[in-house]
């Protein structure tokens, strides 16, 4: 009798358990990456170190949640899937700088905050998905996307969405606001439909013939090709072109880790962050999430390697983030999403 009740009681306790401020052998992670996708990574960490990982995952607002939790926040580590969120966390004052020789040695300088407030752990590029049938060219620049020859042929998700916001901010960093505004107007004029959906739907709409090219992140295409059987036809109908800025390389963004300001389990938090830069974690990032590992010597996944040699844009991420807000205002101003 008691036995049959035990799981019920356990669930009730779990549903109402107070977020542990401090717990021996645990670390509390707030992550923008979906809990399911990151689970293998944390399972491997727990197996190696014996430290249990508690997770809150959300697609928006984690840094605001930490702000509202204040000094009692249980958050130890914030994991983002882009640079803007970690910058938001920095601005909101919910991170603390970390001095770690391990991280500084492993992660190249352009992919981490000089002050140590955040560290990139993996990388993705924002690239062009193009129809295999209808697009012959194999190279393109971001600037070309505003060329009237693409009129009615481009699909894209919302201009306010973080991945596009970072790309537009990078455009401002390269060309200034006035040129970017014109470029955005040109891009807007080339759209086949109102910006909507996600990157996978861009591939879907190209496959359906709604448009010929669109913007997406590198790992979505690999996920559709290798993991998501229903969406494999969308990947098969498209190809990935690595675009570049005329005067630079391909726009990249990083998944980043930051130490929370009031981290109650700081030692475990640092252990996790350093582990994420290690060989095992980096190989998981490469093979399960289809991202570019940041640690030297870790092999790319074959699908990702098949896109061709990536030449990351040299513009520092911190510089790009200075124009994050300007990019958002420009999107509103040109009515990109309307």
């Amino acid at each position: 009798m008691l036995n049959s009740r035990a799981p019920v009681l356990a669930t009730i306790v779990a549903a109402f358990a107070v977020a542990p401020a401090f717990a021996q052998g645990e670390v509390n992670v707030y992550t923008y990456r979906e809990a399911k996708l990151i689970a293998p990574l944390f399972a491997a960490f727990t197996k190696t170190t014996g430290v249990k990982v508690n997770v809150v995952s959300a697609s928006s607002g984690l840094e605001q949640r930490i702000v509202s939790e204040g000094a009692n926040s249980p958050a130890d580590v914030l994991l983002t899937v882009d640079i803007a969120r970690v910058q938001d966390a920095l601005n909101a004052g919910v991170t603390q700088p970390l001095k770690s020789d391990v991280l500084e040695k492993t992660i190249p300088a352009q992919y981490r905050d000089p002050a140590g407030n955040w560290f990139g752990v993996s990388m993705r590029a924002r690239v062009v998905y193009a129809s295999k049938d209808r697009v012959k060219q194999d190279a393109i620049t971001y600037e070309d996307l505003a060329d009237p020859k693409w009129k009615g042929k481009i699909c894209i998700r919302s201009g306010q969405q973080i991945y596009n916001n970072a790309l537009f901010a990078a455009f401002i960093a390269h060309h200034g606001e006035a040129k970017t505004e014109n470029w955005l107007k040109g891009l807007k004029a080339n759209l086949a439909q109102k910006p909507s959906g996600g990157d996978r739907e861009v591939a879907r709409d190209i496959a359906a013939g709604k448009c010929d090219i669109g913007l997406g992140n590198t790992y979505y295409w690999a996920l559709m090709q290798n993991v998501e059987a229903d969406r494999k036809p969308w990947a098969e109908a498209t190809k990935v072109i690595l675009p570049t800025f005329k005067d630079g390389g391909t726009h990249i963004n990083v998944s980043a880790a930051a130490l929370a300001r009031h981290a109650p389990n700081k030692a475990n938090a640092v252990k996790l962050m350093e582990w994420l830069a290690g060989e095992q974690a980096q190989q998981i990032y490469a093979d399960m999430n289809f991202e570019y590992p940041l640690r030297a010597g870790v092999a790319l996944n074959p699908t990702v390697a098949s896109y061709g040699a990536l030449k990351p844009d040299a513009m520092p991420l911190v510089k790009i983030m200075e124009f994050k807000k300007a990019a958002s205002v420009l999107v509103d101003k040109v009515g990109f999403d309307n």
Partner: protein
Amino acid sequence: MNGASATVAVRCIVIAAALFVAAPLAGVLQRALSGNGEVWGHLVAFVLPVAIADTAMLLGGLAVVSGVVGVGTAFLVASFRFPGRSMLAWLLTLPLAFPAYIVAYVYVEVLGPFGPVQSALRALFGFRLASDYWFPNVRSIGGAIFVMGFVLFPYVYLAALVMFRSQNYALAESARVLGASPWRVARDIVLPLARPAIAAGVMLVLLEALNDIGASEYLGVQTLTLSVFVTWLNRGDLAGAAQVACTLLIVVAVFVWLERRGRGIGRNMRSFAGHSQQAGAHDGAVLHGWRSWGATLACAVPVALGFLIPFAYLAREAIVRSLRNGIDADLLRHAASTFIYASGAVSVTLALGFGASMAARLIVRGWARVCVSFAGLGYALPGTVLALGLLTPFALIDDLFNAVARAFGGRGVGLIVAGSGAAIVIALSIRFLAIATGLAEAGLARISADLDGAARIAGAGACTLIATIHLPLLRPALAAAALIVFVDSLKELSIALLLRPMNVETLSTYVYQFAARGIFEDAALAALLIVAIGIVPAMRTVRFARPVEEGRIGTE
């Protein structure tokens, strides 16, 4: 319990119910005033105009769609006999089992470029590419009106059906005898008498639409509610979000005021309509030929669009994917958490809602009634606004706990309220308290005050009166409230999304996260689970739509 402490307890519960709803309102106001007004400029220039225009268009369109569909189907069901009528009468309530966001996810797939509709079109007309023909995009205001209209119209249908069925048929019959056509009777007698009820139904639809974030976000409609969400979470501007929330609350307040005013008018209309003793006796005119099948079709189409098509799609996806990928082992855990939060909300709302309503009856003073009707306003607060407004009260309580713990030499105890399931349960309870107070008030109104008087004369105290007379007579109302609060809590998305604790997902946030990553179909089973549980009370609601007996319990 002696008399004096009973009186204090009775007053406390009434005041507690009102404070429960006042806390988040005060929280929103405090946050809004804490802003420096600097971002307000950007919001006024770029965000608010679009948000207000989109909200107005959405609500206007919804009022028309849900009004026409709800009133039309209710009128047919109440006035005519046609094939399948008795079955359609309850099938028409089933869309209520669906949260709007799930139907939005489904229609984006069904009407998408690789969905069955467009694929069939391409095959039929030999189009090669999706750009060769025009097809409406579900991700638009029109799409949102379509989706929400066919999910929410049963609110209007039920309200109108009750009125149509309980109307005095003598009036309509007399008009017919005097030579008025059926349409003239409908236009000049039946509809005007039902108008207040229809308005109340439409108001519920609009309040539900204002609560929604899932469907509007997915369909790309920038409503005020979504702007609160985006301004807070994406722009990181809490004060700005609270300011947008205040704008939204003004809209809500206008609706609530209109609805209350309509109710006052309704009271007068009802006395004109007279008693409805003969209600069940009249079973409607028999329709013949194409008219009868036309009526069947007119009622079947909304059922198909609002329930059957999305349900069939979900069922198919759930089966296909479960067979291929297996069932997510965590789903059971998420279902259990959802169940626990919903049960918690049921307990709190029943205790507080029924407690306050019964207490207000004992106090028999104006202020108590005002408190209880104020407590009912929580229903009009969109979940996003509620969660935002609760940040301050929760932080105050948690700071207090931690200060006490530290004063006794301990470590901080963490977030007792904000970091545990308590936060969700409290927020859900505030939002759904109105269901409990509403049903309690309606139930109590049917218990004659003479009964209270007689019991008192016989020497019964307040506790005896409640335990032996009120509670037993209120049992059906309690059961109904429990059921409705449970299912509404189950479907609720924004509160769970913003307040859920670590390591926890509810069914709704689980589905939302898949949809947010563009792979909604992989969560079809969870969505189906929400809907399947919601079907039970949706079917039961039609029973409430039977003609109301005018007689009060205890007056015979």
